[in-house]
């Protein structure tokens, strides 16, 4: 690959302090986002995807410690920056879109205020800022943006507000947009609209996107590359076609199989992944997924399996793959 990746997370490990001892929320996570690509991180609750985002943007809760690894953004290690240097990057070269459009806008400020305030770094006049705000609102599909600048967030529906937060995130022309489940709070018909909007804007602006979701289908629709996480580790990584056409890890396969929306024929017995996520304070010896894996055997309990390359750019962490077994 010719260009340097926008973001390279290397061996990142994060612990939470709890009364029972450290909870190992992330363990040696690797993630690379090439320039102008859309990378998806998918996993269920407790997989560490939100911890990963908060570690990247350095907004972690007080009881979290980064115990190892690095996060390189455009060649600089974000974990080594001062708070001031970090602030200069956030909202300028890295922007965020959050899950809940109902709470991510301040209820007492107008949309116009939101949209001009976010341009505080730019040394241009207010008139110019407003013009840019109007253009950006128009491009995210807010009808009649000029007259809506004076309105407050509660005048807008959930879908419209999420469009506004996307417009705000993109005003700074960031190199990386981090989207944390931006469609989870929306109805399905609006989810489609937002996904298509993100894709269109990404192509136009030419930024990279880190898209985090628990929903495989959204990832399939939008992303170029996919990272699958389970209980704090990366279990599989590859292009979107690798993951959806040739899933190698049993967890990925199970996840693809059990979404009720995928099963077109009416069935009385839907597939599931039985069991619960293991306790991350008291980690099991072997493969983290072994306790719920339908294909687990004695070999899986010996130690955590390394990520092995199955095809160029497609890796998965399962001992069965090196055995020459089921994959």
């Amino acid at each position, binding site marked *: 690959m010719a260009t340097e990746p926008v973001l390279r997370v290397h061996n990142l490990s994060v612990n*939470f*302090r*709890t*009364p*029972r001892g450290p*909870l190992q*929320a992330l363990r040696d996570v690797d993630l690379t986002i090439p320039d102008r690509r859309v990378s998806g991180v998918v996993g269920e*609750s*407790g997989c560490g995807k939100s911890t990963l985002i908060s570690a990247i943007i350095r907004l972690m809760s*007080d*009881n979290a410690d980064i115990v190892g690894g690095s996060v390189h953004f455009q060649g600089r290690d974000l974990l080594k920056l001062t708070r001031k240097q970090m602030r200069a990057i956030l909202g300028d070269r890295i922007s965020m879109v959050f899950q809940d459009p109902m709470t991510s806008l301040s209820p007492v400020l107008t949309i116009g205020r939101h949209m001009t305030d976010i341009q505080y770094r730019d040394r241009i006049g207010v008139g110019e800022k407003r013009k840019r705000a109007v253009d950006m609102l128009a491009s995210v599909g807010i009808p009649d943006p000029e007259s809506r600048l004076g309105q407050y967030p509660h005048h807008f529906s959930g879908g419209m507000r999420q469009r506004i937060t996307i417009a705000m995130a993109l005003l700074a022309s960031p190199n990386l947009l981090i989207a944390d489940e931006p469609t989870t709070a929306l109805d399905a018909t609006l989810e489609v609209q937002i996904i298509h909007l993100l894709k269109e804007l990404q192509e136009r602006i030419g930024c990279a996107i880190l898209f985090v979701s628990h929903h495989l289908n959204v990832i399939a629709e939008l992303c170029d590359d996919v990272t699958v996480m389970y209980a704090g580790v990366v279990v599989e990584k590859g292009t979107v076609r690798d993951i959806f056409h040739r899933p190698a890890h049993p967890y990925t396969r199970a996840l693809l199989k059990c979404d009720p929306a995928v099963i077109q024929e009416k069935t009385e017995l839907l597939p599931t992944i039985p069991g*619960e*996520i*293991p*306790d*991350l*304070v008291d980690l099991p010896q072997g493969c983290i997924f072994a306790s719920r894996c339908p294909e687990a055997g004695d070999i899986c309990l010996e130690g955590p399996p390394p990520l092995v390359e199955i095809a160029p750019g497609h890796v998965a962490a399962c001992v069965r793959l090196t055995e020459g077994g089921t994959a």
Partner: protein
Amino acid sequence: MSSGNRQTGKWASVVYSLRLLVRDPMGLAGLILVTLMVGTAVFAPYLAPRDPFALDVMNRLAPPSQDHLMGTDQMGRDTFSRVVMGARIALKVALTAISLTLLGGLVLGLAAGYGPKWLDNFLLLVFDTLRSFPTIMFALAVVAVVGPSLNTVILVIVVTTVPVYGRIIRTQTQAIRYNEFIQAERAMGAGIFRILGVHIMPNIIGPLLIVASMDIPVVVTIEAGLSFLGLGVRPPTPSWGSILNDGYSFIRNTPWIVIAGGVPLILTTLGFTFLGESLRDIFDPKLRKDI
């Protein structure tokens, strides 16, 4: 993290909270001072070396000595014994007043927060009216009618602080009443008293008790203030406020009386405030540092 504290039961978390409290220097100081104060009050008759009411006219305004640790007052009564007994009065007033306030606040606050809109409006009007009287004026009016006594002090304190608690409880109740678990209880057919008592109250009482513990020193000061002004407890009763009042006239030559009455007042105030603030930090998950 959902998989966090799995097996921690009720007792484990109480022990853990206590550990956090002792580890916080402010919490530890508060705990020690409050224990000291409560201990003094409970064991006052055993701790007081002399009869706090016994007059000794020969020994008026005596300076501190081995016989009289804090000297004597203008009637020759032992100041130390009076201060020790005064702790009893202070704690009695504080606990009675705060408990009654909590009770009244709960009843009115829950009614305003969960009841119909008109009741809410009416109770808010009552709260605001009561709040608009200055405490001292109100106290003067009450004393003029029923005369000064310990019960008058308690009545004045309760009436003027119930509105504050009522408002807090009303707001908390309104915040909770539309939560899904309350809707779920209604959908199961639960009656209003069960919803208020089993499902709403346990969720608001914790922060409220902390506010109450921080209000105890306020009440102690009000009692002292009213007694100082002669509106509180009747003269022979050893309240910290009346000790201050007694010493006040002789402050030039015999300052120990004022010091003896003032220092425990300050320490009690600091103790309860420290303890309350430390508890608030521990139980407010947003302020909590390490869980």
